[in-house]
């Protein structure tokens, strides 16, 4: 080998090392950029909101403008009520639809269903608010918890449908065959064997959908509307944490701004907790099939 080619070889080797370093740095920085916003958001919320999160915040109604103190208990409870209402619509339709996709649907129907679900997943959430406003609020002449729950439930359906389908398809066919070979009816096989095997995954999908809609504001603007007081009837406007944060954040009062920070901190912490639950649930995932 001549001197020249040895050097060329060396240069080539050097350049390869540089490319390698560049590529790994790029991926590392990108990975950091995923984590950084979460850290920043949390940090910011803690700095601005932690001082206003206290016992009063969780047990008191909002005070009128100018009066210090007060809390958001009505919004916290209102959000939970809305999530419950949304679940009544979103969970059964989403789960059963996902089961249909995975177990019963023909290729063509499934293609249409999946396409529809994926498009719906991409629909801006305010659209749901407008749709429910037109269909429910105008017809029944009033904002209500029902309308808000419906808007959130409609957002849940495609989310749960797709995750349910995916985890049900992960259940090995051997279990279905084993049950059917015992003379067990198809629907019993699906409910008692397939869905039971996939239950962790289905619950995970439901929790993630709840975490997603828990923070939705836009679909509630024209439906649940918000309420500064206790809601005594689901056919009346109801407060929700994201709505209350929105109202307080765009207000001109410093005290309300602080409360908005506190509300945002509580909301994000709640969603964070749900995600931690999901992590715990799915921890043994590889070991126990689904």
């Amino acid at each position: 080998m001549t001197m020249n080619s040895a050097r060329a070889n060396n240069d080539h080797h050097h350049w390869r090392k540089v490319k390698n370093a560049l590529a790994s740095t790029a991926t590392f920085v990108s990975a950091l950029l995923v984590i950084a916003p979460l850290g920043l958001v949390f940090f910011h919320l803690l700095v601005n909101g932690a001082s206003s999160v206290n016992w009063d915040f969780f047990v008191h109604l909002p005070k009128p403008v100018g009066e210090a103190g007060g809390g958001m208990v009505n919004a916290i409870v209102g959000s939970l009520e809305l999530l419950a209402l949304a679940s009544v619509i979103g969970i059964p339709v989403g789960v059963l639809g996902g089961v249909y996709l995975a177990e019963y649907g023909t290729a063509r129907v499934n293609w249409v269903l999946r396409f529809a679900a994926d498009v719906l997943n991409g629909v801006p959430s305010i659209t749901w608010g407008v749709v429910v406003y037109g269909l429910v609020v105008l017809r029944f002449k009033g904002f209500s918890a029902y309308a808000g729950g419906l808007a959130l439930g409609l957002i849940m359906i495609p989310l749960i449908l797709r995750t349910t389908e995916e985890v049900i398809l992960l259940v090995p066919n051997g279990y279905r065959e084993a049950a059917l070979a015992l003379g067990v009816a198809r629907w019993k096989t699906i409910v008692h064997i397939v869905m039971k095997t996939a239950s962790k995954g289905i619950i995970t999908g439901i929790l993630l959908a709840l975490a997603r809609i828990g923070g939705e504001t836009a679909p509630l603007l024209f439906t649940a509307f918000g309420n500064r007081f206790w809601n005594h009837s689901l056919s009346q406007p109801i407060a929700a944490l994201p709505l209350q944060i929105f109202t307080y954040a765009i207000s001109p009062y410093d005290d309300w701004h602080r409360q908005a920070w506190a509300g945002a901190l509580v909301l994000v912490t709640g969603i964070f907790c749900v995600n931690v639950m999901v992590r715990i649930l799915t921890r043994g995932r590889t070991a126990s099939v689904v």
Partner: protein
Amino acid sequence: MANPHPTVAERVERPAERPSTAEPAPPLTFEVKNLSIWYGEKRAISDVTLDVASNAVTAIIGPSGCGKSTFIRCLNRMHELVPKTRIEGSVLLQGQDLYSITVDPAIVRRRVGMVFQKSNPFPTMSIGENVVIGLRLNGVRDQKFLNERLEKSLRMAALWDEVKDDLHKPGTSLSGGQQQRLCIARALAVQPEVLLMDEPCSALDPIATAKIEELIYELKTQYTIVTITHNMQQAGRISDYTAFFYLGKLIEFGPTTKIFTNPSERQTEDYITGRFG
């Protein structure tokens, strides 16, 4: 019921069709007549006629893709789980046409149990729950009866002594061979008349295999067994009758001793001696 197929009595008058020539005709569990099966356009089984003797082990041999699995799956209508299957000919179980429109496939499968190549105890259930789940899901609520069946099925599967203190443990905690015997117990618990086995030992070590073989030998006093195997020695050891399939056709069928010592077809001999397949 308009039945285009010959009755048992009619068949008995034509002993020439019997696989065994010298011995008197044994009682039959299955009578398969001119059976063809299609998956969509693809023909998996072509014109198979074969009788399965009661309380005996019938081994199905043949190279991969020759239709063995399709054949035993059509004995309990499991092949119908694949969409677009079509069947011609008939399968009689104790004289009853399994493919008559009045027959519920779930009932067929209760009468004709199945054990699969890969042991598949339900991962969410304990050993005990795995055994009785078939009865439970078929509507049996009587706990005393369930407990009786639990013990009896595990004893028949030669697993009781190994697991009787661990019935609450997950079924998947057992070893591979034990899991396969658990699956056999689960199939036996619903009290079938026939046990189909699709290569029940192919994933097991020699010791576990020997246990299953011994079990098959004992079970045939009470059950009719049809088993697929890729292991010629195993077919020779455990079976009374052997059927050789090739490319979806039944090439040869007869008593195992004859098939292995004096096959009539060249293809059978080549396969058994390892010259192809």
